[in-house]
């Protein structure tokens, strides 16, 4: 380390602790570092204030209907955000349904199941999933996945067509771009987040608890159920909430594969739209109230993700304190 190899400084002429200039510089350094810390608060506050101000024309133009109306028609100057909220929530839920079991599985693999040799490669695999930029997932999704998966969707809708409720969800025809495809791509992106946090939580399970379970004759699965899961419930909930926040805010990949049609539909294989996606897709060609409405969607998204993240972080922090 550098400290040990650094040449000894010449003996100081004046005591370093003398008051005056040195004391002042010390206080200044503390002040500057505090200022940098406070920057976080300032930025979060500024985001809320400045985006709300620019979105105000849309809020005053549509009033409460901005949040409750199902109709989004920029050409007719009608801006209701509900279809996008719906698409955001539905795609995020699909993503979680797909990603949570896989993420928990990988986390268990890394904490309790994996042979020592496999631990590092698998944890690199998770890092790789996280390192791929969202736009690259989007490009792959729209050019490779969507055309292929539309055939799979068609087959699923054929098979499920006699089943009453399920046939509505999986009704065709599909172009391959839609809510479900967006959910799949989002699942790929939230898997590393949920995995890394649940793994952190699993690692805090006391070894004594695990050994106690084994000593009572438990199989590994019974040990996981008796010792690991009860201990990790709070942390896992927090991790899932963080994944939810990330899935709701994910923009570019969703913008490419979601199909971009502002409708509320129960047909998961058909196209929809999400808040983040519509901002990315329409911002460039927008103006006036339309642009304000898009910024308004951003304000709504900001508020939603802040709530989700605050809840998630609170749960995780509490779990850590108790654990």
């Amino acid at each position, binding site marked *: 380390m550098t400290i040990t190899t650094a040449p000894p400084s010449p003996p100081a002429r004046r005591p370093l602790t003398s008051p005056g200039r040195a004391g002042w510089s010390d206080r200044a350094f503390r002040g500057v570092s505090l200022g*940098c810390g406070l920057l976080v608060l300032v930025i979060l506050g500024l985001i809320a204030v400045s985006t709300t101000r620019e979105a105000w024309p849309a809020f005053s133009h549509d009033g409460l209907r901005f949040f409750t109306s199902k109709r989004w028609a920029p050409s007719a100057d009608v801006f209701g955000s509900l279809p996008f909220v719906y698409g955001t929530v539905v795609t995020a839920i699909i993503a979680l349904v797909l990603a949570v079991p896989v993420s928990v*599985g990988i986390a268990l693999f890394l904490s309790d199941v994996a042979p020592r040799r496999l631990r590092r490669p698998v944890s690199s*695999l998770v890092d790789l999933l996280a390192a791929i930029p969202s736009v690259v997932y989007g490009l792959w999704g729209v050019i490779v996945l969507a055309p292929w998966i539309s055939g799979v969707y068609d087959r699923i809708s054929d098979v499920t067509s006699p089943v009453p409720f399920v046939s509505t969800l999986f009704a065709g025809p599909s172009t391959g771009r839609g809510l479900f495809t967006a959910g799949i791509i989002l699942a790929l992106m939230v898997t590393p987040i949920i995995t890394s946090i649940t793994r952190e939580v699993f690692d805090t399970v006391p070894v004594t608890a695990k050994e106690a379970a084994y000593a009572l004759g438990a199989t590994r699965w019974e040990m996981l159920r008796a010792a690991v899961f009860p201990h990790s419930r709070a942390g896992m909930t927090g991790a899932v909430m963080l994944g939810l926040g990330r899935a709701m805010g994910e923009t570019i990949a969703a913008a490419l594969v979601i199909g971009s049609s502002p409708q509320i539909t129960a047909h998961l294989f058909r196209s929809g739209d999400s808040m983040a996606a519509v901002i990315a897709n329409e911002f460039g060609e927008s103006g006036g109230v339309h642009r304000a409405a898009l910024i308004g969607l951003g304000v709504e998204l900001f508020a939603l993700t802040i709530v989700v993240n605050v809840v998630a972080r609170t749960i995780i922090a509490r779990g850590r304190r108790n654990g």
Partner: protein
Amino acid sequence: MSTLLLGTVSPARRLRNRLATASIWLSVLVAAIPLAFVVTYLVRRGAGIVDWKFLTGDIPISSRLRGPGMGPAVLGTLLTTGAATAMAVPLGVLAAVYLNEYGKRGRLAGVIRFLSDVMAGVPSVVMGLFIYTVWVLRFGQTGFAGALALGCLMLPIVIRSAETALQLVPNELREASAALGARPSRTILTVVLPAALAGVVSGALLAVARAAGETAPLLFTIGTVTESNRHLFDGTNTSLSAQIFINARQPFEGAIDRAWGAALTLIVLVFVLTAVARLVARRFTVR
């Protein structure tokens, strides 16, 4: 340990254990398959396109045209990410210094720590809108505006990773420095930060890798160009990520090819940064 006992375990329990173990292995496979597909497609579609001419040539004016050119995007990505790093890393490290060296377990430090975690969860598209409203509306679209948006995204990541690095510095070093008569600020600058350097650098590189791949914050802040723009504060710019997004939406083969080429270039850049970060972390934390 469990294998020794399995002889006394009933078949039903043994089956359940087998099934659980199998599904845990399966979940790893489920995550690996799409990753393998994405990477192979990237290499297969991108490898034939990326060459020196592609990395340096101008972007065709019409996306119908075939042929190379992502030079302006390569330059734009380096420029905006570099400027964002120059802003976010010093500020983030100083904030981490406050959290770990001054604020410690205090209430204000707790609030800042909590809010920087929350800030890390703010969607990147919202950061883009934020910079659009406070900067672009007044000063126009420039590379610098994009750097501001990326910097906002990097800041919380840098803060938390730098704080972790500072926590790993043994307290004895601080005490030894204080015993020699050094003031807190001098201890931090000449003892604590150099000792934490590896962790700080690797955390910062991971933040850079994340920022280099971001698209949404750049869409509204840097505009687009087809010729290289070296000026950070003057005129619109572009980036690899933005070009992938723009070209992926075109129906033309030339545009799709350029999107794959840009994606491969971007991925290589991100992977190199990530690999260097891990190397730095591993190389220096072992000692």
